[in-house]
């Protein structure tokens, strides 16, 4: 394989996307609402479509605002349905996001089919094409620095997430661990909940172009889940999630270029391989990590099941 500027661009987009997703993903995982990421990544679609209809442009602020609103509505509707309809949270989520996603698909099919908001791209993204749309960051006679527009958007999302979590780190931790204490101390855990939902919505929209609404779920959840197998220290967990996210993206792109050619096939899609690699890293840690399946249990004095205790 030959390394081109496009490869650098794809790599940059993939790494930024994975890292931007891993941050809110950590708190989704800790709040045991990982599937909320799934719900929101699908439910933002009508928000996107309506914003697109109003503003007639992609990658605009309207898209992010539309997505944020759709994200909050998903959280609200889920809350209401499970509260007043007396169905469990998972079922409520299933009702809300499939309905919103369907509305979004219909809107796109009916109104925007002939422009470049395309249903297939919405599902799996088109990371290979992101380097085609470049933004010049800095230019003089001797040198030129340009990056894919998607990298800029995702870098912005990563920065936004890092800022929000950095600013509200204490509040997010408290509201996730003990919402009752957060409430009695006047910290408004529902506010933190909606802030997290906004982060997830904004991040999934930023990731749409690159990885679509399915693979983004892997990027939200898999790196934090892998890190959770390694540590029970929150700052370390967040750091490891970011590292694992970047590693998965790099390995993903490299393997998408290298592995198929080894067996004489054309290169495969990078975003798919990025999610696959994230899953592979999870498997590795699950087997070989500190509490891994292949490690001997560390607790001493407890006999193996079925064996008589040692004398």
């Amino acid at each position, binding site marked *: 394989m030959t390394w081109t500027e496009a490869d650098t661009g794809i790599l940059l987009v993939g790494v930024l996307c994975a890292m931007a997703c891993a941050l809110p993903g950590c708190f989704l995982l800790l709040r045991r609402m990982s599937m909320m990421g799934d719900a929101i990544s699908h439910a933002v679609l009508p928000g996107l479509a309506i914003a697109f209809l109003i503003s007639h442009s992609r990658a605009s602020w309207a898209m992010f605002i539309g997505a944020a609103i759709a994200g909050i509505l998903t959280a609200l509707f889920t809350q209401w349905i499970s509260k007043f309809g007396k169905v469990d949270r998972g079922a409520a989520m299933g009702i809300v996001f499939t309905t919103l996603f369907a509305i979004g698909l219909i809107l796109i099919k009916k109104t925007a089919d002939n422009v470049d908001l395309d249903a297939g791209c919405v599902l799996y993204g088109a990371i290979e094409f992101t380097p085609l749309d470049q933004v010049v960051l800095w230019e003089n006679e001797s040198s030129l620095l340009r990056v894919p527009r998607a990298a800029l958007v995702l870098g912005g999302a990563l920065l936004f997430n890092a800022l929000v979590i950095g600013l509200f780190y204490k509040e997010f931790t408290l509201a996730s661990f*003990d919402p009752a204490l957060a409430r009695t*101390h*006047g910290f408004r855990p529902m506010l933190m909940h909606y802030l997290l939902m906004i982060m997830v919505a904004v991040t999934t929209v930023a990731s749409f172009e690159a990885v679509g609404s399915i693979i983004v779920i892997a990027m939200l959840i898999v790196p934090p889940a892998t890190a959770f197998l390694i540590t029970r220290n929150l700052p370390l967990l967040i750091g490891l999630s970011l590292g694992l996210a970047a590693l998965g993206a790099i390995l993903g792109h490299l393997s998408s270029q290298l592995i198929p050619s080894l067996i004489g096939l054309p290169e495969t899609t990078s975003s798919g391989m990025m999610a696959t690699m994230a899953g592979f890293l999870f498997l590795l840690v699950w087997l070989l990590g500190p509490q891994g399946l292949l490690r001997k249990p560390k607790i001493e004095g407890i006999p193996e099941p079925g064996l008589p205790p040692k004398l």
Partner: protein
Amino acid sequence: MSPLPSSAARPSSIASDHSPEFPLSVHDLTVAYHRKPVLWDLDLDIPKGSLAGIVGPNGAGKSTLLKACLDLIPKTSGEVLIYGKPYEDQRDLVAYVPQRESVDWDFPVSALDVVAMGTYRKIGWFKRVGKKQKEQARAALEQVGIGHLADRQISQLSGGQQQRAFLARALVQDAEIYFMDEPFAAVDAATEQAIIELLQELNSRGKTVLCVHHDLATVSRYFDWLVLLNMRIVASGPTKETFTRENLQKAYGGKLNLLEDAAHALQNVGR
């Protein structure tokens, strides 16, 4: 808040005097879940400096009473006053220890982190946990006897140690009133002893402690004030007066068919 009228100015139908001297006054409180009442028209005054137990059968609404007092669940009607004012204005005076199972003990924080959460309100929004708060948290962990476990992840604590960490978190709040939901549930004997000694120590410093409790055998040893609850208040007053066979029969009804339990418990009266 307008000042409360004195008891003399009130209609005589209101039995208790809800004066602002009481750390906790509950007035005509009704709470319902899905239109089914859980607490019905409660009137309650807890005097300052009591170590009070709330006792009643399963489903009597003991935890619900605490949660309604703390605005964690909506009140259908009635009001709760903390030193004469609504809870919203008195948050700093109250520390709450929820049931141990109410949180996820697999959460990636250390014992010290959990205790430091008790100081978050004083720290306020955005600001970080500082050295001072960490020292307070460490001191509180020492006080409950698990100072050496400060840096341990909470997933590696035993049930008793978790309960002690929760208690330490309430201690750092330096409150006037402590609401505890079953602090003795499923802890080892040493922890139970350590906890009751701590509560008695708080009590001796004039703090008011309100404790949901389920073990009738220890009621008269632990508490000087007793609230017997079964959807309504069956009795509320000094333990010596309220902890009677008749009241227990009323609170537990048919559920107390093991009268031997009660008899055994009653033997402890006055000890």
